[in-house]
């Protein structure tokens, strides 16, 4: 006997993500899901971004890692509200899921926030599959990873709404061609805005900050 089901396997996550989206919208908080491989410089990019947008844009951060509070400690130094999620409690998951965001968001004072940035677990594969209730998705690629990563991990660059090409201060020391990296991102996702910048020297931040401020409406 065949029983028709026709259900998405990840429907439990998707329905929680929709609840999260409504919760954030009701609280007038714009949510950005920031994803990348480990070591691309997400945290440093975020620290510098927070320094430039706060206190005009009141920002909170949920940061996901398998272990340690290292990133939360760095981000808290900026004065932002920060919640650390360690997924070893969830079996060392390779991504943040909507239920983890729901739980973490309850620890934040949303009345005091315009923007919530979720720093996802460093991984170019799994986080692309899991909606967490965000409004926009950003992917960070650093020039040290090589210009062909968008072609190797197409889903991540296809689902992202915006991309950052980080560590451009290192280009003189590398064989990486930044234009090829940008072109590869645009092959996978035509029309996606790409912002080359250096979180270390703060070169190239202005277009990125303008994009983010426009999203939040401030």
């Amino acid at each position, binding site marked *: 006997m065949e029983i028709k*089901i026709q259900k998405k396997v990840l429907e439990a996550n998707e329905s929680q993500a929709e609840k999260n989206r409504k919760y954030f919208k009701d609280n007038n908080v714009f949510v950005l899901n920031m994803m990348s491989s480990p070591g691309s410089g997400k945290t440093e990019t975020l620290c510098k971004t927070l320094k430039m947008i706060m206190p005009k844009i009141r920002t909170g951060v949920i940061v996901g890692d398998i272990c340690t509070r290292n990133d939360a400690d760095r981000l808290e130094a900026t004065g932002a509200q920060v919640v650390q999620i360690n997924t070893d409690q969830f079996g060392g998951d390779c991504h943040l899921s909507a239920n983890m965001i729901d739980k973490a968001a309850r620890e934040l004072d949303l009345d005091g926030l315009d923007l919530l940035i979720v720093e996802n677990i460093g991984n170019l594969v799994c986080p692309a*599959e899991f909606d967490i209730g965000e409004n926009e998705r950003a992917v960070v690629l650093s020039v040290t990873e090589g210009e062909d990563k968008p*072609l190797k991990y197409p889903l991540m660059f296809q689902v992202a709404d915006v991309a950052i090409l980080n560590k451009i201060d290192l280009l003189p020391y590398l064989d990486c061609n930044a234009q090829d990296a940008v072109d590869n991102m645009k092959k996978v996702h035509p029309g996606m805005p790409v912002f080359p910048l250096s979180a270390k020297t703060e070169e190239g931040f202005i277009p990125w900050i303008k994009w983010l401020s426009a999203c939040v409406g401030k």
Partner: protein
Amino acid sequence: MHEMGVAQQMINIAIASIPKDIINPKVETLNLKVGKLAAVVEDSLKFCFEIIAKDSPLEGAKLIIEHVPVRIKCNSCQHLWEVDEPIFSCPSCKDGTVEIISGRELEIVSIELAE
């Protein structure tokens, strides 16, 4: 990388869909649709499924996977095409934003119960 969680969700959905009046149900086949862009590795999914299905009505069930090709639509010129390589720019107008029509599926289509 998250095939264990996917296998667990599949089993939860399959068990919830078995009619309550069937005594000692045994699922023989689980029919799935998996898009080529879905971040799921078939061998790994089958391996995880076998482990989690132990001592459940799905123990020993066969996973039949229909692979769904990646189909893209250009929002500028409405051109529709199927991609085999990770290049999503429109081959017709070389411009515009695109929409994924298929290829991201991860769905349970049906289960087949032993009579």
